[in-house]
């Protein structure tokens, strides 16, 4: 009896090894993913409150006003959901690809987990007390309670801890596998953690050396332009970190789900390197309307931003080629006929597929916004909110949802049942409909002039403002559909995590094409790529930053504008 049990365990262990499943690492990823989806649930409800308010359907009470809700919605979804998901997902990949996490790496990730949670709690308390309605961008001279910034600083430290863990893990693997390429998903993870590590330095400087001394009153004034610039050097990079995370699933996982092969390994790695090198400097496209930046410099930065568009386009090309090849191999015929061969009923394909399609209008909108004259029309209007609900709320988040339908079963040692799959498909369509309504309405009403970050007002029944109402109503309808989507999604995740039938789930990683060109080893020389990245960053930031600092205005004292 005892022996049989032992044998069974032995067998189980072997199966786990073959699947690259490591229980302790899985627990880590599970915790990260659970936090991410709780953030989605809470953040989603806050979003609904905002949507209903903007449509004039709901007046928020004075003890929980629009700007508190908005700050929390932004932080929960932009920071907590994405950071926790990204880390949970990539740590699962590192564990699976690289033979399990080293104990010290796991420990670093756990330390990071709790530091981040502590930081988040510290940041939320002042928001709830209406002491930190500064939105997730926390632009000075708006000043929140000092505790808010201490919380942010802790979150930074927590993420750094995870970055360092990932670096140790990859370096160790490379030492033991000399001359081999790091497996592709771990390669993505390396790129993402490199970007996170360096991008966080900018906010860390902003928060630790500029804002904290200022809110404590150790210094009287702050250089607003420098602070904004440091914020966006980080903020923009964060955006592309989400993008890289989503792309990793598009390139590596989706082809496997549809039974195809991965597109060129070399091209994939080149895209990752290109994004890492060129990314941080894109930050200035968030400051196109800011004063104090020379036109020539702005022009250079538009060029840099659009340069990132190039690898993105390569991505789109590669992916649709993979789809077509796979479908044709399965007997799909004709110009459009092969579409029928795609697994439309499989949520692991459907959700990321729609996410990719959404990236087409999202990218087009982004290119429009990078243009100075066009941005003057939409800057700080609801258009922008529409834009990032399309990019982040659809392209990225729907990919995360798609990932969850195999990742959560994998780390929970359970399976995706047909029922949950069907629920996922329904969820995907609801989310799609909701986002199209909400984001479409936001884009349009933005063109009509409705400002972002502004609770419901008719400006004394001004005709223009009244003209926005129908679109804002559509926005609320979209938001309502979305909250249904949120509930279904969160239900699905926790069902797969705790209640689905036990069983083995594969970690889907597509193979390379047979006749693939060999990837040169230089793609593994991260030292080189990081030095080039730093040079590019220096080239982009030295001119404007020197100007901001040397020709600085008197600076601003803190303001509480709410």
């Amino acid at each position: 009896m005892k022996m049989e049990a032992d044998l069974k365990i032995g067998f189980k262990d072997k199966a786990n090894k073959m699947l690259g499943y490591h229980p302790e690492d899985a627990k880590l990823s599970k915790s990260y993913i659970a936090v991410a989806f709780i953030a989605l649930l809470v953040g989603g409800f806050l979003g609904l409150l905002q949507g209903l308010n903007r449509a004039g359907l709901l007046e928020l009470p004075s003890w929980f006003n629009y700007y508190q809700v908005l700050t929390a919605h932004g932080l929960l979804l932009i920071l907590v959901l994405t950071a926790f998901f990204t880390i949970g997902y990539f740590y699962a990949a590192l564990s699976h690809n690289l033979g399990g996490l080293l104990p010290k790496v796991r420990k670093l990730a756990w330390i990071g987990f709790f530091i981040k949670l502590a930081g988040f709690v510290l940041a939320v308390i002042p928001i709830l007390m209406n002491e930190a309605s500064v939105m997730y961008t926390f632009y000075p001279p708006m000043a929140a309670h000092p505790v808010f910034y201490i919380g942010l600083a802790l979150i930074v430290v927590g993420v750094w801890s995870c970055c360092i863990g990932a670096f140790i893990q990859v370096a160790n693997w490379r030492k033991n596998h000399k001359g081999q390429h790091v497996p592709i998903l771990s390669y993505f993870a390396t790129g993402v953690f490199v970007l996170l590590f360096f991008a966080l330095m900018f906010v860390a400087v902003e928060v630790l050396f500029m804002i904290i001394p200022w809110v404590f009153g150790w210094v009287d004034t702050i250089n607003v332009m420098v602070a904004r610039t440091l914020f966006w050097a980080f903020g923009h990079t964060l955006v592309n970190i989400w993008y890289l995370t989503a792309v990793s699933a598009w390139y590596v996982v989706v082809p496997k789900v549809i039974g195809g092969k991965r597109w060129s390994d070399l091209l994939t790695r080149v895209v990752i390197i290109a994004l890492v090198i060129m990314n941080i400097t894109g930050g200035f496209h968030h400051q196109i309307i800011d004063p104090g930046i020379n036109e020539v410099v702005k022009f250079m930065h538009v060029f840099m931003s659009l340069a990132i568009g190039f690898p993105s386009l390569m991505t789109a090309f590669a992916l649709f080629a993979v789809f077509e090849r796979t479908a044709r191999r399965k007997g799909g015929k004709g110009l459009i006929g092969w579409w029928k061969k795609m697994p439309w009923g499989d949520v692991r394909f459907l959700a990321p597929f729609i996410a990719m399609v959404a990236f087409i209008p999202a990218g087009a909108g982004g290119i429009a916004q990078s243009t100075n004259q066009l941005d003057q029309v939409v800057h700080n209007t609801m258009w922008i909110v529409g834009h990032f609900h399309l990019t982040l709320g659809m392209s990225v988040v729907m990919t995360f949802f798609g990932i969850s339908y195999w990742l959560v079963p994998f780390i929970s040692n359970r399976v995706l049942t047909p029922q949950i799959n069907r629920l996922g498909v329904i969820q995907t369509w609801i989310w799609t409909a909701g986002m199209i309504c909400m984001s479409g309405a936001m884009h349009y009403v933005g063109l009509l002039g409705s400002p972002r970050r502004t609770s419901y007002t008719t400006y004394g029944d001004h005709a223009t403002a009244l003209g926005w109402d129908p679109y804002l109503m559509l926005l609320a309808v979209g938001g309502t559909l979305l909250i249904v989507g949120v509930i279904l999604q969160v239900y699905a995740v926790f069902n797969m995590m705790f209640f689905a039938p036990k069983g083995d789930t594969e970690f889907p990683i597509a193979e390379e094409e047979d006749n693939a060109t060999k990837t040169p080893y230089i793609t593994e020389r991260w030292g080189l790529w990081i030095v080039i990245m730093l040079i590019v960053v220096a080239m982009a930031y030295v001119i404007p930053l020197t100007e901001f600092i040397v020709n600085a205005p008197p600076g601003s004292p803190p303001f509480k504008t709410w």
Partner: protein
Amino acid sequence: MNQSFYGLLLYIFLVTPPVANFMESLMVIHMHMQMPMLVIAGMLMARFFQKRFPRFFEKWNSNGVPGITLFVILMVYWMLPRTMDEALTSTLVEGFKFISLPFLAGISLRDSWKKLNPFGKNSIIISFTVLFIGLGWIYIWSPVQLCNNYLVIEQVTLGWAFLLTAIGMIVYLGYNFFIDPSAYE
């Protein structure tokens, strides 16, 4: 041959008057983008000359020292504020810039670097690091305008670019010192 051709394209791009004028209009771009890119263009084109005149390089630059010396002299020369000024005012000097940086400095760097031993390489990088720190210090804290053609703010910007480049090189040296690539490759 491919890379020589791209080098030539880059070179032609850089000397086109609108591009050259734009790059020279900002001091830091003049020194930290135009000049290095001219050197890079030369390094790319070097292959062509190495294949064409192998004996010449063999004879005059067998251990890399003459080449790297030429490179260093030219670099130091072009980092003087005075020479930048002159390149902007005198066409002759500007012409010399467009010829000396790619064809003398770029080619000799490419031909010499591989021939140097690690000690030589490191000493070159270290000397440039020290030089850059010094120049950064001069450009940032100099109380007067050093170039007739550029304002003090541009000078300060350039100084920071020098300091950051020096920091970059220190990072590189540290990386080289602490990390042994053969443990990974």
